[in-house]
């Protein structure tokens, strides 16, 4: 082929490759990454660092749920459970290992991945061949079983008291490494950066996954299962793969979450509210977008963190207006209103709706009304 003029397909692919590193989306990602790296140094507030760490963890957990729900069209209520399995893997191994060492963290991560993969394979193999609603019910039952197990198996999990533990070496909250450019280097900061590195790697992995040939097949299955099978794809295998991969990533997010809190209990990592939060985040961000996970997680976590502060704000702004203070007290109501507004203005989630608008503009340029 050397010396021949490029074919139309080759020219189109060359154009796409050339644009890869100059596209606004790529530049926004770089800027975001720079903010996450420099954030703790520029704004040394634990509250902000705590918020950002949780947003990173949940952004990946939501993106992994998006693989299952948004890309493959499988309704699973067990995603929170896998998150909890990962969290408990770290908590129990660190709690029962004396003295706790670095390899225990690695072991906990591997255990979390292994357990979640096995559980996901078993649930998928037993129920993915049947109707979607049956799979949803099975996952709900298994998730609730694990939640109850977290309470009842108190000899291992410490029941509702939960498990608190210490991290090894430089990740221990008590460790201090002096200061650098005015920033205190301590265990919390290093755990933050560990979360940042792992979250970025997992997120990149998820993006690569959905852009891979497997990701295309998953989208085809969501679009029309029969057409996907008539094209030669074994739908059941791909569904299992999607469920296992998404669940595995969720369990690793749970492991990061446990490391950040150094504490877990059944309600925070296995309860239904966690699953509902993940579901809200994916809907707000946009189904089938992966990047929507970042916005969804940021929206919910920022609202959860800052809306309760409205009470103080209302008191200082309108000290004599009782109605405003009572309204600010009921911040969960404001949260509900914000959620409704976001769904009204962004029916396909923020990223989904913005993508749709960009697509409409692009089609207009191509001459389609």
């Amino acid at each position: 082929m050397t010396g021949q003029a490029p074919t139309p397909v080759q020219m189109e692919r060359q154009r796409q490759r050339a644009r890869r590193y100059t596209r606004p989306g790529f530049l926004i990602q770089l800027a975001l990454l720079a903010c996450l790296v420099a954030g703790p140094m520029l704004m040394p507030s634990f509250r902000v660092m705590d918020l950002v760490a949780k947003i990173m963890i949940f952004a990946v957990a939501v993106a992994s749920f998006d693989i299952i729900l948004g890309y493959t069209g499988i309704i699973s209520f067990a995603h929170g459970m896998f998150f909890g399995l990962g969290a408990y893997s770290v908590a129990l191994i660190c709690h029962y290992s004396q003295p706790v060492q670095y390899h225990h963290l690695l072991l906990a991560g591997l255990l979390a991945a292994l357990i979640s993969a096995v559980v996901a394979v078993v649930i998928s193999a037993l129920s993915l061949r049947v109707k979607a609603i049956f799979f949803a019910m099975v996952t709900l039952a298994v998730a609730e079983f694990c939640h109850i197990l977290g309470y009842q198996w108190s000899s291992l999990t410490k029941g509702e008291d939960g498990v608190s533990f210490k991290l090894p070496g430089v990740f221990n909250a008590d460790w201090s490494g002096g200061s650098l450019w005015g920033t205190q280097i301590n265990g919390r900061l290093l755990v933050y950066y560990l979360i940042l590195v792992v979250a970025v790697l997992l997120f990149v992995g998820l993006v690569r996954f959905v852009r891979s040939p497997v990701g295309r097949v998953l989208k085809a299955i969501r679009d029309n299962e029969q057409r996907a099978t008539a094209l030669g794809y074994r739908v059941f295998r791909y569904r299992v793969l999607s469920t296992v991969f998404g669940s595995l990533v969720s369990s690793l997010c749970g492991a990061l979450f446990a490391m950040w809190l150094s504490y877990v209990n059944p309600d925070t990592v296995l309860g239904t509210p966690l699953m509902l939060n993940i579901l809200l985040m994916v809907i707000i961000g946009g189904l089938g977008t992966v990047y929507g996970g970042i916005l969804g997680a940021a929206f919910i976590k920022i609202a959860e963190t800052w809306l309760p502060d409205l009470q103080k704000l209302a008191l200082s702004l309108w000290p004599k207006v009782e109605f405003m203070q009572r309204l600010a007290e009921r911040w969960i109501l404001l949260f509900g209103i914000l959620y409704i507004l976001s769904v009204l203005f962004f029916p396909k989630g923020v990223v989904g709706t913005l993508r749709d608008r960009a697509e409409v503009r692009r089609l207009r340029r191509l001459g389609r009304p």
Partner: protein
Amino acid sequence: MPEAILSLAGVHTHLGQHHILQGVSLEAARGRATVLLGRNGAGKSTTLRTVMGLTPASAGSVVFDGRAIEKARPYAVARAGVGFVPEDQAVLRGLTVEENFRLAMLQESPEAWAKLDTIFELFADLKKFWRAKAGVLSGGQKQMLAIARAFVGDHKLLLIDEPSKGLAPIVVDHLIASLNQLKQHTTIILVEQNFHLASQVGSDYFILDDGRVVHSGLMKALVDDEGLKQSSA
């Protein structure tokens, strides 16, 4: 007469309690375009779906390229080399035109990509909307995409169900030209109500009625036989 690439013998298919195919027997010759004709509900589309394994046969045999496939799952039939273009512009609407093509290439190869260049010559619009979602294409463009997608899949046999359904006459003329191009490369079985298209593309025909083959022969002979033509409509 070339050897048969597909043979159906005494095929029966049930859809729920309905007995749709009641002993269909036919042969499609390799390298030719075979058209299935007949009134609505005669069992033409079900015949294609039965070959594909989407509505499996309850009795009878389906042999493709020397291999029995009546019990095979649809993905296995597709991987054996049978491409299926269902009716209603069956593209994957939520995926881009590019993704639709890449899915059809079970193994992405330089040869498969080279075929796309031929496709772009035939259907220039597909290149224009390369990165657009297939759902936004017009009816004609969707049909072109569905057929072109089957073409890149490197199939030995293509089953095409009513490709002209819902298309404007000018688009149908374009479709005839593309199907004629396509049949230079692969064997086609076409279900079609539009006799003009069927006669322009088909080499052989089978007329189905009430789930059975009632007449067959060369398309050329059918074109000359006014009486039979009326009964096939």
